[in-house]
């Protein structure tokens, strides 16, 4: 019996040793990939597994396009856990060379030396379009890899059923806020078919809302701008939240509280598209152009128009940046790779599918390129493409209308959001006015901006 036990023990040990050797072999095998290259880089990212796989395909193209640099993708989970994982890696001097950067931390990390202030387009003939450069006191930190703006998305069938003309698609024809409310009112129905304001309207049994304004903190900023106000000073050094900004935000909350044409969707409960147009019970919703990606494979007949305005037409640019982390030994090669990666030609999948707009100016001005990423992209073409061109592409390059959102020039927006987002729930539910909320949290916002 003892002999049998010994034999089993020996076999187990052998199996374990074999397994370890096999693992070691497979590990060195994967590590050996590209080891003959002069420079090895890692590119970190967040996102779904599908995005990771798509990025790996892009990196493989880069690796094949030249014989000096080898880039490996490093997937660090979701955006929420991305920053903390990078911070942990930084303590072991183990950060990737380059990668996506959380918009909210970009300026702060650059100030603290975690992100290089490196203009990857310095001295280059082609540069990204205006408004997508993260800058700290005038110095370039990073560029968004995509150029996004907001738009007014709508369900064409709901408009047609109500006999209401579709929203305007040119900025000069944009609805005023009052016009927008009136259309939203006509498109809001309770279970008995009544509109808000009608006798017997039952606000507890609304089956279709006319409007849905996305209340993620950085998207709310557009309504402050639209009403002639600001959240932050132009150089990002001061909290403003002036009377016009506060009034603009209150007008958004009043869509639900007063006019009863929008659902209750405070920032931390806002699922955006999936709770609005995607759910099939909302007629109009503000959302980024990336919603083109959501429209694919849906039976809903979507259209796109320009945002309504309060005092002046306004929009914001947005888009996740890529940057070079300070622990890299190869900043020049990382910049070379990022220029390649940010080139629309090399990251065509997300652009064609609708998630991204190109980041280079010539893609908005040259007809052949416009044709390629709008008219020839089926999801944009069915909006139709002409609407997308005027409602989104033209707005994106109109610098009188479209401004960088706060995180392009303001540090610590992560800390500001931690205070602002929960505080504004009390304005959204009507317990307090936006003025009261901002008065209460203003000292905290000032302290958070200071860091």
């Amino acid at each position, binding site marked *: 019996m003892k002999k049998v036990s010994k034999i089993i023990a020996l076999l187990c040990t052998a199996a374990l040793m074999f397994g370890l050797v096999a693992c070691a072999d497979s590990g060195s095998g994967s590590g050996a990939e590209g080891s003959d290259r002069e420079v090895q880089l890692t590119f970190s990212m967040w996102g779904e597994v599908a995005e990771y796989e798509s990025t790996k395909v892009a990196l493989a193209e880069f690796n094949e396009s030249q014989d000096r640099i080898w880039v490996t993708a490093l997937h660090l989970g979701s955006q929420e856990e991305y*920053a*903390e994982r990078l*911070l*942990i890696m*930084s*303590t072991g*001097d183990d950060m990737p060379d380059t990668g996506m950067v959380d918009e909210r*931390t970009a300026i702060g990390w650059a100030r*603290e*030396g*975690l992100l290089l202030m490196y203009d990857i387009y310095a001295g280059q003939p082609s540069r990204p379009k205006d408004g997508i450069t993260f800058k700290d006191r005038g110095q370039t930190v990073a560029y968004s890899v995509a150029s996004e703006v907001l738009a007014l998305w709508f369900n064409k069938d709901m408009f047609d059923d109500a006999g209401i003309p579709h929203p305007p698609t040119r900025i000069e024809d944009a609805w005023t806020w009052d016009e927008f409310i009136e259309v939203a009112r006509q498109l809001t129905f309770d279970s008995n078919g009544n509109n808000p304001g009608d006798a017997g309207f039952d606000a*507890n*049994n609304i089956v279709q809302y006319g409007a849905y304004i996305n209340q993620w903190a950085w998207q709310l900023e557009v309504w402050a701008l639209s009403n002639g106000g600001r959240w932050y000073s132009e150089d990002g050094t001061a909290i403003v939240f002036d009377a016009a900004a506060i009034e603009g935000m209150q007008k958004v909350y009043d869509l639900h509280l007063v006019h009863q044409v929008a*659902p*209750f*969707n*405070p*920032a*931390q*409960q806002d699922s955006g598209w999936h*709770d609005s147009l995607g759910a099939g019970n909302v007629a109009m919703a503000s959302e980024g152009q990336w919603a083109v990606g959501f429209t694919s494979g849906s039976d809903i007949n979507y259209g796109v128009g320009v945002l309504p305005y309060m005092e002046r037409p306004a929009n914001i640019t947005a888009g996740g940046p890529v940057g070079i982390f*300070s*622990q890299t030994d190869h900043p020049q090669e990382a910049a070379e790779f990022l220029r390649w990666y940010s080139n629309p030609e090399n990251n065509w999948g997300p652009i064609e599918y609708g998630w991204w707009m190109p980041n280079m100016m010539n893609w908005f001005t040259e007809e052949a390129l416009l044709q390629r990423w709008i008219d020839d992209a089926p999801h944009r073409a069915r909006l139709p493409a002409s609407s997308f061109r005027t409602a989104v592409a033209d707005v994106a390059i109109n610098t009188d209308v479209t401004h960088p959102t706060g995180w392009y020039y303001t540090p610590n927006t*992560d*800390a500001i959001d*931690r*205070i602002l*987002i*929960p*505080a504004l*729930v*009390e304005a*959204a*539910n009507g*317990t307090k006015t936006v003025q009261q909320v901002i008065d209460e949290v203003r*000292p*905290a*916002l*000032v*302290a*958070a901006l200071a860091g």
Partner: protein
Amino acid sequence: MRLNLRGALGTTTCCDGCPHNGYGMNIFRKEKKEKSIIAIKEQRAAYVFLIPAFLGLSLITYLPLLAALIVGFTDLTVFMLVRGEAPSFVGLENFRFIFTNPSINFLNSIYVTIYFALFAIISSVIYSMFIAVLLNRKMPGRTFLRAVFYIPYILPSAAVMISWFFLLRYEGGLVNYILVNMGFDRVHFLSSADTVIPALVMIAVWTCGNLIVIFLAGLQNVPRVYMEAAEVDGANFWQRFWRITIPCMTPIIFFNMLMSLVVNLQVVVPALAVTSGGPGQSTMFMTYLLYHFGPRTGQYAFASAMAFVFFLISALLAAVIFLTSKSWIFYEGDDK
């Protein structure tokens, strides 16, 4: 020095001639005994086998605890580590900062954390005791029901919180749907500062299956002889419950309160998964702030100072439960 033991409860006399009760202190005075070789070997083996656990505890628990305490008195951030800068000793500056900086509002966090924890402890203990008493009765399907009440405890807490969010949300939530159909107005369960803590407490109570199991084990150990004696004396159910069951269960209640305190003071999932610390600052729990200043933004000195305060508060509340327990815990054979 040798003790003269005369019976378990008899009088003992030590060498100085002082009489002592059989269970008195002097019985614990160490005698110098000659240990057998086997006993010595066993003792050494015990030390050897304890080494891995001791090292593990020291390296993974006690050293980091000590480090966190020390970091709380420095200006360390993750960025200093990256830049290779040495932290400086700043005394109590971090504590002054966390208590006075308006962007932190730490006093509010302490308040909402303790409020939630006490509310959750009391509710959980009462609810789980009630359910345990019901499940302790002989009835068909008892085993199935015990499993039903235990399962919420083993579900992933983030999944539980998100599921409850979808049930309780203002727009499209099932509970509000039912309320509206019953003729009531919708309620901002998780989006009003007045109702969010009670709603979270309800969820915490729903997941306290472990307390139910422990109470069940305790109930099954309540001596049957007392119950029978009380029944013979004509005591009704409530009299038996209050005069026999509850006193016999006080050690279990004490244990469950302590466990519940530890779990509920560390509440963080609701804020992370659903409320983001709001509405207002009504769920800005201490651990949520710790997460924000620690892993999230790498301001380790502030996070460590918060952790130290959190530790003190936890210890204080645990001490209160321990100290007051002497007056309300009954042990069999106790004089009380």
